[in-house]
């Protein structure tokens, strides 16, 4: 057959490859990669022992638990309600549906600080909702619950926008088939529709989760920020910066990045797995 020449780029009659790729790489290199490189380098400046001490410091660990816990709770809430919202928007027609659909993207459009102060004022003891919850013994502001509420706000569009296209693609014919075979609506949903959109739901959950882990602006007002109690990890990084503990800040940042990447990797693996399964059955 002859030797296969290694080609870095398939030839194309279109011009501009060198220019556009070069510029993109330069831009990315300077603005993204170079700054990001400071993190592992800075963290590597510490010995393993010091690194471990910083990362496993009690305050840090408390922040991990809080951040992970509230992010998870929020992601779960979003998975449940987000699914309901996506279902309603895709399958039903009702007045105001389009308006509601556009509204779902509000957390994407709204600056995090603004939502932060708005949520705080609502859930504060004398706030619109706070004053109802207080007598019930439910404290929302300055507690983990408040954090979870803020994170739910942030993550909502992720689930809805990931599940909507998947629901859109569910073949109505499959449901008809199930119905003719005697399944009632719940069975059809439970056995036919839901499994088909489950991967998308999990992806949306993971995206909301990843986003919630790193969230700062909408949380930092409602949280109260008491070390060991209501201090999220991203705030801890800022605290360390203010103390000029650059290395410590970098170390904790690396932990956060590792967690985010792990989640993203999990999403990619899941998508790959689903794609493989579908290819096998189609």
């Amino acid at each position: 057959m002859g030797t296969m020449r290694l080609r870095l780029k398939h030839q194309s009659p279109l011009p501009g490859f060198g220019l556009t790729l070069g510029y993109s790489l330069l831009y990315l290199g300077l603005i993204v990669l170079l700054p990001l490189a400071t993190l592992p380098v800075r963290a590597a400046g510490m010995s393993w022992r010091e690194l471990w001490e910083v990362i496993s410091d009690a305050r840090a660990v408390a922040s991990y638990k809080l951040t992970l816990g509230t992010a998870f709770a929020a992601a779960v809430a979003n998975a449940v309600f987000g699914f309901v919202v996506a279902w309603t928007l895709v399958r039903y027609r009702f007045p105001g549906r389009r308006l509601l659909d556009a509204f779902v993207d509000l957390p994407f459009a709204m600056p995090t600080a603004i939502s932060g102060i708005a949520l705080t004022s609502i859930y504060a003891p004398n706030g619109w909702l706070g004053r109802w919850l207080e007598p019930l013994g439910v404290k929302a502001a300055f507690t983990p619950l408040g954090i979870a509420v803020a994170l739910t706000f942030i993550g909502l569009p992720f689930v809805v926008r990931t599940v909507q296209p998947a629901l859109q693609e569910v073949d109505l014919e499959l449901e008809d088939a199930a119905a003719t075979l005697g399944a009632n609506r719940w069975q059809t949903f439970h056995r036919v529709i839901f499994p088909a959109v489950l991967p998308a739901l999990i992806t949306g959950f993971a995206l909301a989760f990843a986003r919630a882990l790193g969230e700062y602006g909408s949380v930092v007002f409602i949280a109260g920020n008491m070390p060991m109690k209501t201090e999220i990890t991203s705030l801890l990084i800022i605290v360390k910066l203010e103390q000029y503990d650059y290395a410590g800040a970098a170390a904790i940042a690396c932990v956060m990045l590792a967690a985010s990447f792990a989640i993203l990797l999990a999403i990619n693996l899941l998508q790959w797995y689903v794609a493989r399964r579908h290819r096998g059955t189609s």
Partner: protein
Amino acid sequence: MSIEVRHISKRFGRFDALRSVSLRVPDGELVALLGPSGCGKTTLLRIIAGLETPDPAAGSQILFDDRDVARTDAGRRGVGFVFQHYALFRHMTVFENIAFGLRVRPRRLRPPEEHIRARVDELVRLVQIEGMDRRFPDQLSGGQRQRVALARALAVEPRVLLLDEPFGALDAKVRQDLRRWLRRLHDEIRATTVFVTHDQEEALEVADRIVVMNHGRIEQEGTPDEVFHSPASEFVMQFIGNVNLFHGRIDAGKAIFGSLALPASAAQPTAGGGARLLVRPHDLDISRQDTGNGIPARIVRLQSAGPVAKLELESDDGQPIKVELPHSRFRELELTNDERVFVVPSGGRLVLEDYAI
């Protein structure tokens, strides 16, 4: 302007699209590149246009009027290219599409706007889409889009016109009309034209010369007549029209096919060499007598619905034979299924193989 390519090869990854292809198209000719999917015809066309670059090789050249244009950009070669799916600029009107080539010329070469308008109007009339200047491509039918694409390519007065499966995406009736129209257009304009097609009927009907390609190589080059009646290889013969292929051997100056013996004249028939007989279905007759010039076979299927009666037979060594008879003859014979008869060729090509022992 004449086109010549010499020793053009092109490889995509592990796939050899073209293998050292050489071809010459004289000025003013209308040539069809014909072949099955994957034979390299579109790649060759795109290389001539400058949309692909051939692999570097010794002696590899692309010549327009004997001038090497291999290093010239597609936009400067003076070619007009019509894409299979038209590639009309969807956000421009028909007028703007056709005027495009003239409007992007560098200032000193750009004709004044009135001239451009006149030229576009002229082309609109030529391709018969009057009244549609202001329409957008998505408001046109497939045939209309194709004609706009052609007008657009012609606007810059190319010396070479290249068409990639120009009628591939259209339905049969439109295809036929456009085929004839293209032929008339070419006769009027006389630009050297090369078009790619996988439809042999189209090639036979439209082209001055046909280049049959397969697996990246040119199998045969010739007029439609030559290609149809004197196919140079088994592939060409199989690809163009229906053909029966009989294998036999040479013995004592004759080519033997079963009980059929044909004089093996000329060349150097070597005793013991092989022979091939290529016969079109309509050049075969059926006889019930063994007159020594027929091949025994059994009728497997009779189909009399259609312009001619079609018979499928099987020879003694299991070879399928296709025969076409005029209805008068068919009725005359009163054939039945499973009947054993003799297939008598009344014309065809005898190909003698040389055996080097």
